């Protein structure tokens, strides 16, 4: 009950899959507590079936998203920044409840997250110019190399940076035309669910970003071994032995793997993620009359 005596309307935290907000098909949930131990919510505890449904949604969306113009993808990422800006206070509150610390710190992280969307939005129509190039082959040929999206990328989002780390992992994958299946921070999943609500109103086609909550150790192996996933971001895998088994499982269909590494998410990103989730395609054609 609030100070005014009004009963608050609580939010149900669900998954974000294929542009919709389902509960886990398993009907399970798990208790999410804040930094101070207070109960925050019952989040959905996704199953293997949820992982597979999310991959189907991501695959279905991938072709259309990759063939959208870079200008359009850039505008949609920018729209996500606009939508987050409007919910700045809500995100700060959720983040503070999850992480603890001061309001100011939480606000700074939300602002950095919004700015990260803006930074990557600007990359959409520059990546091909920066990562691609013409090649001066020794013969009468036109020869051009350009980056293309890898396909469907599985993201195990950073456990300790539930909003800034999450967006820092998603944005570089989707800006080039990949679609993603994201496993949110296990202990702090709520900002990820709210991010899903932002993405649903940012003109992203359903399925471009799919967000699952639950137990990382339960879901990640199914994502790592899934034959229709092309890349795997292990940033949020804190246990080295789990990281090793996931990387080994990813070898079955030779997924591109981003290994866990210490990252300062507040710093300006490098191009490593943009490069990891793109493939260079080189086209030759003879030149002549």
């Amino acid at each position, binding site marked *: 009950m609030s100070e005014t005596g009004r009963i608050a309307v609580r939010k149900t935290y669900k998954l974000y899959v294929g542009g919709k907000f389902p509960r886990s098909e398993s009907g399970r949930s798990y208790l999410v507590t804040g930094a101070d131990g207070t109960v925050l919510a019952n989040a959905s505890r996704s199953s293997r079936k949820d992982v597979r449904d999310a991959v189907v949604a991501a695959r279905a969306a991938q072709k259309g998203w990759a*063939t959208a113009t870079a200008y359009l993808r850039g505008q949609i990422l920018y729209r996500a920044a606009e939508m987050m800006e409007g919910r700045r206070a809500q995100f700060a509150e959720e983040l503070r409840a999850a992480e603890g610390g001061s309001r100011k710190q939480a606000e700074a992280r939300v602002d950095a997250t919004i700015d990260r969307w803006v930074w990557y939005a600007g990359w959409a129509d520059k990546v091909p110019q*920066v*990562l691609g*190039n013409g*090649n*001066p*082959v*020794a*013969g009468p*040929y036109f*020869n051009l*190399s350009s980056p293309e999206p*890898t396909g469907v990328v599985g993201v195990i989002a950073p456990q300790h940076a539930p909003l800034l780390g999450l967006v820092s992992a998603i944005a570089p994958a989707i800006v080039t035309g990949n679609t993603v299946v994201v496993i949110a921070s296990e202990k702090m999943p709520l900002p990820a669910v709210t991010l899903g609500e932002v993405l649903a109103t940012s003109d992203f086609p359903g399925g471009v970003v799919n967000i699952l909550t639950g137990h990382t150790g339960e879901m990640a192996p199914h994502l790592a071994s899934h034959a229709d996933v*092309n890349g795997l971001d292990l940033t949020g895998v804190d246990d*080295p*032995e789990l*990281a*090793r*088994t996931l*990387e*080994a499982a*990813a*070898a*079955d*269909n*030779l997924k*591109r793997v981003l*290994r866990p590494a210490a990252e300062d998410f507040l710093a300006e990103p*490098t*191009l*490593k993620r943009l*490069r990891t989730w793109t*493939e*260079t*395609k*080189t*086209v*030759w*054609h*003879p030149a002549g009359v």
Partner: protein
Amino acid sequence: MTMFEYAPAPESRDVVDIKPSYGLFIDGKFVDGKGEAFKTVNPATEETLAEVAAATSEDVDAAVAAARRAYEKVWGPMPGSERAKYLFRIARIIQERGRELAVLESLDNGKPIKESRDVDIPLVAAHFFYYAGWADKLGHAGFGADPKALGVAGQVIPWNFPLLMLAWKIAPALACGNTVVLKPAETTPLTALLFAEICQQAELPAGVVNIVTGAGATGATLVEHPDVNKVAFTGSTEVGRRIARAVAGTRKKLTLELGGKAANIVFDDAAIDQAVEGTVNGIFFNQGHVCCAGSRLLLQESIAEEFLARLRRRMGTLRVGDPLDKNTDVGAINSAEQLERIRALSQIGEAEGAERYTAPCVLPERGFWFAPTVFTGVSQSHRIAREEIFGPVLSVLTFRTPDEAVAKANNTPYGLSAGVWTEKGSRILWLADRLRAGVVWANTFNKFDPTSPFGGYKESGYGREGGRQGLEAYLDV
């Protein structure tokens, strides 16, 4: 039709001096291996060319230790401008000794001298020349202002382009400041050992390049060595998967260039004779021992019959035989083992109901040979349409619409290369966008250049070799 007969025009093998036995090249010197020596044979005659040392794990340890010392004391601290000069020197010596290398490559591998002389060896020299120039310009390559080397690279290469694959591995590694331990394929070690001599002639500091010969076990020891920072492998997808599992959980950077089952798509408006030439080049170049070979021919239905008639006629003029004969178009299959695999898959093709046509040609009695072969009536589920045969065997499928061509071309776990033949420019670009392959050759096929990145999508591996993009594999970025 009467044809003029060719008189044999054999290239002299006197230009190359093959020793009866070879050791390992470790720390700038040839040393005896601790394992049992093995023989390398000429696949065209089955004669033994030389005995080669098999490196044990102790030998691999010594090679990695030499590479580590050279990385820390000499090559790592050396300014890029100095490393560049060594690489330019190596490029020049390869050009100077080009004929010797070409003859040796044809003897050990079985490929026609026409190809080793005009394709392999010139590309090897060009590759060293290209990456030499990068050594002191890495800050301009788009990987940050001062990208660092990784350390010691363990590299394992295949038998189909022995010296060219060595160049693709060693040139960028050295340009970026790494040192290397390289294992050539068991059946084709000789040009790598001659390259070791070239390193000595170039006075490359000891330990910068180490060559360890041996079979799969030597390669496994090398990629699993705890003091290797970078693993680069070219070969089968199956072995690539094993390597990816083996390096899981380590900090080793990995690049893989694996198998392929490329579609070569011919539309009804293509320049037919050029497309026939491109098809022949796509599958019979290097006996089809090419990971990016155009092994699936997709013909638009309306021209299939005419195209196949011309293709068969052209296949009849291919000269199969002595790799050292300058007239030879198709040489020997590299090994008895590979010949067996090609035969087995071809028999499966017949058993599954595809129609086989084999070029009428007389094959030599000794050696490993397989006549150029084409299967028609192939469906997508046939094993000869799905599995990499790695031999001179073409599977022909048909399509009606561009969408169907794309769907069939992409219906494979591989994604290394693809070909498109049409006179319509907008259609080329439309297809190029949709084909899930690292290299798309439009109105050409099997073209390579050191400035042009090469590598696969999906299960054809990851990472690129060649071009500016090829530097990434050897930098800590």
